[in-house]
């Protein structure tokens, strides 16, 4: 496990790339950015996704999820100040994206898993700007922070 200072730098670097570009750096890019060895960078990716909690695509070193965002597309499409290119890890984490884009409007569009009809949620800082339809609810069938293999689906 990397030391705290490196974990901080790694987390910050990955999050900055995800917020700016909707992608996570490959471990070779992360290593170059932080001035560390390739294997140290690769291990840092795995350490950080385990504690955030996100995940890599199974059997790879590719970051698939880094909450509140998902790098692998989900049905929670996100636009920030009208610019598309992001996805939320889940419907509940979608409500936390606004904290990473202060002063900007985060718009989440998703189909309802029951009927497929569209939903829209817009938030900016402390304000909920739009909820359509108005009775929109959130639900999880498992404890938040539960087993890793159920995280995308609960």
């Amino acid at each position, binding site marked *: 496990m990397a030391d705290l*200072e490196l974990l901080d730098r790694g987390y910050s670097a990955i999050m900055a790339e995800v917020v700016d570009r909707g992608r996570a750096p490959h471990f070779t890019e992360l290593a170059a950015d932080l001035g560390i060895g390739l294997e140290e960078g690769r291990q840092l990716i795995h350490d950080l996704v385990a504690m955030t909690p996100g995940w890599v695509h199974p059997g790879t070193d590719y970051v698939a999820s880094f909450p509140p965002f998902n790098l692998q597309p989900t049905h929670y499409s996100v636009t920030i100040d009208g610019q598309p290119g992001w996805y939320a890890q889940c419907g509940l984490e979608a409500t936390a994206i606004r*904290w990473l884009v202060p002063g900007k409007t985060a718009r989440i569009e998703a189909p309802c898993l029951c009927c497929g009809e569209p939903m829209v949620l817009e938030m900016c800082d402390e304000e909920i700007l739009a909820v359509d339809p108005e009775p929109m609810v959130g639900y999880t069938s*498992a404890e938040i922070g539960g087993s890793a293999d159920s995280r995308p689906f609960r």
Partner: protein
Amino acid sequence: MNLFRSEEHAKRWNGYDPAMADALKPVAEWADIFSNPFFRQRGRADYISWTRSDDGAATFTLLRSQLPRPIEATR
């Protein structure tokens, strides 16, 4: 961890579990839970260190107390 058009839609979802009925909340209530500093502070340069600080630990304890748990786990 999904959004639905209404409570009725969530209950009709094939993944709905009555044991987690407490986890069915208006999206505004979930947005409030996800306003906890544990989520707000993700942009800080020392986020991982902060989560391990006394302040971060207290925040996480508060967050855990706000999260719904399965009915059998609360008995």
